[in-house]
């Protein structure tokens, strides 16, 4: 990618930033970004939806399926012991990745959605009519609907703290929404629809001050900043593997050990029990109590490799890299007539939502798609956030470690072509 590197280096505003940016060779680890990997060359600006997978993650999956495709736990032959060791090593890797105290605080789920639903069942079903669950106005449906379902089951009160005109959730409004009946506070660290980063630690501190338990939706956060559950002091935290350069079909619920000890299991089956008779069943220790049945073995191993891969890149570098991209993109989008940026959060991560005057986002998505530019158009599973801005849908560009300033340029060129065609 010689031209890519050139554009990238040229565009950097001062030389001293060059050493904190990610090396161009990263792109070589992604099959569909390699020369000839996609036709037309792929300009992937949809990492907030799902991230591309580096070769190392794919190799880890293949290695499991080829060389140790055994079930885990209690297999006595070497292949099963190897698989068990790899699976549990992945748990320890994830533990380190989010700085959890114990590896048994890491529950493997099928995704962030599954993890939040686990909290809604395991913890939420212990709530009573009138207890309050507080969420924010910019949540993903995954952090709205489970609480609505809980409202149906338990008669809890679901309260929403609105965002402001910028797309921020003001701390004072958030604090004002807390009260003595607030039992659970669930919010996203980073909005997938607007890019807003929330003041997680402060919000958790306030929530704890009224005695509420906290759930952080870290689906977007884990790929673009260091997540430290002890620093945030959160009680639950959920994320997916596939947005973190890992496989589909895997997610993580982190929870404080004491909460997990107190919670009843949500699913029944093999491995989550110590002993079963028809009359009486004794649950297994953590984390197994919450992992009924054969777990996503290959996927956990792949996720472990993915977290190591991200850690090796370094979050300082990742943040600096994405900052350059998102700043450039914002500037160039603003210079394009007819662009309306949706959301002007005080702290933005690598996501930009916008509209083009007179053109529906879906038409933009289809036309850009033809140029190889992959953006997302729609409500981004955040309809209430869209409604807040009085629009049904936006165009969303999201940036990741493998993106370049050439990608930003391609987006702008593509948008101009869309306008030429449609207007």
């Amino acid at each position: 990618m010689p031209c890519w590197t050139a554009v990238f280096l040229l565009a950097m505003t001062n030389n001293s930033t060059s050493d904190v940016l990610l090396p161009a060779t990263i792109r070589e680890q992604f099959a569909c970004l390699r020369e000839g990997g996609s036709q037309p060359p792929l300009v992937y600006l949809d990492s907030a939806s799902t991230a591309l997978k580096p070769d190392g993650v794919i190799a880890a999956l293949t290695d499991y399926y080829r060389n140790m495709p055994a079930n885990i736990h209690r297999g006595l032959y070497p292949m099963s012991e190897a698989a068990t060791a790899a699976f549990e090593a992945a748990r320890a890797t994830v533990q380190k990745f989010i700085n959890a105290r114990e590896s048994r605080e890491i529950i493997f789920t099928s995704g962030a959605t599954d993890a939040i639903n686990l909290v809604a069942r395991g913890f939420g079903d212990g709530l009573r009519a009138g207890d309050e669950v507080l969420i924010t106005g910019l949540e993903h449906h995954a952090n709205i609907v489970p609480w609505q379902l809980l409202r149906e089951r338990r008669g809890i009160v679901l309260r929403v703290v609105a965002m402001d005109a910028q797309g921020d959730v003001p701390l004072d409004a958030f604090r004002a929404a807390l009260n003595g009946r607030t039992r659970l506070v669930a919010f996203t660290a980073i909005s997938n629809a607007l890019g807003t980063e929330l003041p997680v630690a402060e919000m958790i501190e306030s929530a704890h001050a009224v005695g509420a338990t906290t759930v952080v939706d870290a689906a977007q956060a884990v790929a673009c900043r260091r997540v430290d559950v002890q620093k945030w002091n959160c009680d639950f935290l959920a994320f997916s593997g596939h947005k973190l350069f890992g496989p589909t079909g895997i997610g993580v619920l982190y929870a404080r050990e004491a909460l997990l000890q107190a919670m009843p299991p949500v699913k029944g089956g093999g491995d989550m029990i110590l002993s079963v008779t028809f009359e009486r069943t004794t649950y297994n220790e953590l984390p197994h109590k919450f992992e009924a049945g054969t777990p996503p073995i290959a996927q956990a191993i792949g996720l472990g490799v993915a977290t190591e891969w991200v850690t090796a890149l370094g979050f300082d570098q990742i943040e600096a890299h994405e900052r350059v991209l998102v700043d450039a993109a914002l500037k160039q989008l603003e210079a394009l007539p007819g662009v309306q940026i949706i959301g002007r959060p005080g702290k933005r991560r690598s996501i930009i939502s916008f509209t083009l005057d007179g053109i529906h986002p879906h038409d933009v998505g289809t036309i850009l798609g033809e140029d190889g530019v992959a953006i997302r158009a729609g409500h981004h599973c955040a309809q209430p956030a869209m409604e807040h801005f009085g629009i049904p849908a936006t165009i969303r560009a999201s940036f990741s470690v493998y993106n370049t300033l050439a990608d930003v340029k391609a987006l702008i060129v593509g948008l101009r072509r869309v306008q030429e065609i449609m207007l």
Partner: protein
Amino acid sequence: MSVTDEIYQDLILHHSRRPRHYGPLPDATHAAAGDNPLCGDRYEVRLRLDEKSIIRDAAFEGSGCAISKASASLMLDTVIGLSRDEFEELFRTFHALVSGETPSPEAVAQLGKLAALSGIWKYPARVKCAILCWHAVHSALAGQAHASSEEEFASNSL
């Protein structure tokens, strides 16, 4: 073939920019809303049928993408003058066309300018846009107030 040949041709763009039959229809006998909550597309379709159930006039209003708008515009152009049964047959033909099936040449001929939407099957995410207002007309004729681009509109809600 590029997307400008397959979808965003002049005819489609023309109808999306200046849709025909766009606006109210004060003497409507039948009406239905058509919406695709997943896109945010939302239309209102109104029909005036005579005593023999022939569509005598039709109009639509609302907002959505170029494809849904152009499809509605072209469709109303074509269905005025048709009976219920004729509309349903045309809908079947159109549905087959935008799903990538190959209707008979006579069937295609019947579609007239609507054949311009035939390339849409290559963009499966957009097929629902093309048929949204057709569903609305279908619902209006059936006396239902509401249609959705989703084949089965789940009625459970909370």
